[in-house]
């Protein structure tokens, strides 16, 4: 029950309370670039959710087994080379490199796979995939997972389920934000915007107001965690 509670907390936190786009302001480039039409925005949101899940899975695996201080795989290799050494190997300095590397190549791989075996799917959202290889929202999810895996006591370490929950609901939160934004921008086309604000200006203002609306969720996680954990 406590585990389920923590999952709900992570999910709500990633999707609403600490929305990636509107709270942390990561992933702004696709948020502004592809939010012109609702259907395009939804496609982009789905692509981000998809890629972020793959990235979270891979980064969790790499952090847990190779990168974190005392990771089993790197320590095993270390002990093979230096038998009897009691050094705890810490490769967390490689975090950024490995994440970008792994995500970029896995997205390439997925793109090729989808193109070959699911052409309709490729047509509908394949064009977004190269656009979001390692964009900031995705790297942010990986670093957020890293924060809860690397260098924390084993009892508080996130397992794969928690990592994936954060990623998937972070992606859903991104989709929510970008679709809301696209809906507003479609309406905005009919409005008489002052000439100086047309284009990027009014878009950024609208994004700011949307972010302010999401501020209403702030602090909900505190009371929620009280409720869920008793």
């Amino acid at each position, binding site marked *: 029950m406590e585990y389920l509670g923590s999952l709900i907390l992570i999910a709500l936190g990633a999707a609403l309370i600490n929305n990636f786009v509107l709270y942390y302001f990561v992933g702004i480039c696709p948020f502004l670039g592809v939010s012109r039409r609702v259907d395009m925005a939804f496609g982009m949101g789905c692509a981000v959710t998809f890629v972020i899940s793959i990235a979270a899975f891979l980064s969790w695996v790499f952090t847990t087994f190779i990168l974190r201080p005392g990771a089993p795989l790197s320590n095993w290799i*270390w002990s093979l080379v230096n038998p009897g050494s009691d*050094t705890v*190997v810490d*490769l967390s300095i490689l975090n950024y490199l490995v994440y970008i590397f792994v995500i970029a190549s896995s997205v390439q*791989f997925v793109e*090729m796979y989808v193109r070959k075996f699911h052409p309709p799917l490729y047509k509908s959202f394949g064009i977004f995939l190269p656009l979001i290889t390692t964009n900031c929202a995705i790297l942010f999810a990986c670093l957020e997972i890293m924060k809860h895996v690397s260098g924390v006591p084993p009892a508080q370490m996130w397992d794969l389920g928690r990592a994936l929950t954060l990623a998937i609901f972070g992606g859903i939160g991104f989709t929510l934000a970008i679709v809301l934004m696209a809906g507003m921008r479609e309406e905005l086309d009919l409005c008489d915007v002052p000439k100086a604000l047309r284009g990027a200006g009014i878009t950024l203002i609208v994004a700011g107001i949307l972010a302010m609306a999401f501020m209403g969720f702030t602090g909900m996680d505190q009371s929620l965690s009280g409720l869920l954990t008793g």
Partner: protein
Amino acid sequence: MLSGEVFLAGGVMAVLAVGMSYVLGWANKAFHVEVDPRVEKAEDILPGANCGGCGYVGCREYAEAVVLEAESVTKCTVGGGSVAAQLGELLGVEVEEAWPYRAVVHCGATTTDRLQQHEYRGEPTCSAANLVTGIQGCIYGCLGMGDCVRACSYDAIHVIDGVALIDYDACTGCGACARICPRNIISMVPFKAEQMMVVSCSNKDTGKDVTAVCKVGCIGCNACARVNDLIQIEDGLAGIDYDQYQPETADFSAALDKCPRESLVLVGKPSEKDLAAVADQDLPDRIEADFKTTVDDTEWRG
């Protein structure tokens, strides 16, 4: 001890790099999708404006349609004849002569020509104004709020004296204005010559109703159709048959003489004669801005 960790870090990256390149290299072969090389060649030929004038999303989609679905090669309005010829050469098909399509505004009524105008204080866009009745008497004519001006990526259309005018030196025929116009008075006409005869009216009402709302609209009097075979009157409006239109032989002088409403006009790039006619008029060296806001001038502008 430090150097040992550096080697371990380097080793991890090296193993990752080799492993990933192997996987991607394998996937590149295993998941290879055959793409017709002609599609890429066709895409190179197309101008890459992605304007959508051909009816496809972008140049890539049109290139695919041309190569794979035997779509007509003459649809690229921006590229015109030269692109069509190159595409035809690539695919080995005969190209019928392709005419560049250019936008034509089928309304010639300036603000002073329109009757029954009323003040409008809503959104200054045609799409909004079109929802309101009674802005002007003519329910077919140009509203002059410039939706087409904003839609044009080439600065080829301007609202002058309350009616949209096209700059044929800049028009590429992408059709964006024709799609955005809420009254559908802009059509794409094949320009078989630099200058084309067009009917500058869209009003389909009977002559009496037209004269009630406009000083220059076509009243469907049939005078032009009687002296010229290319013109037919349909639904009370003159229309020109551009399939039969031969710019070398077409002679509209009789029809122009007959037209009591000046609804037939010649549009297109200015000829040398036209340029010579205005050559002696001095252009101002510098055009001073007119700092008059629309608030100062609240008379109806549509």
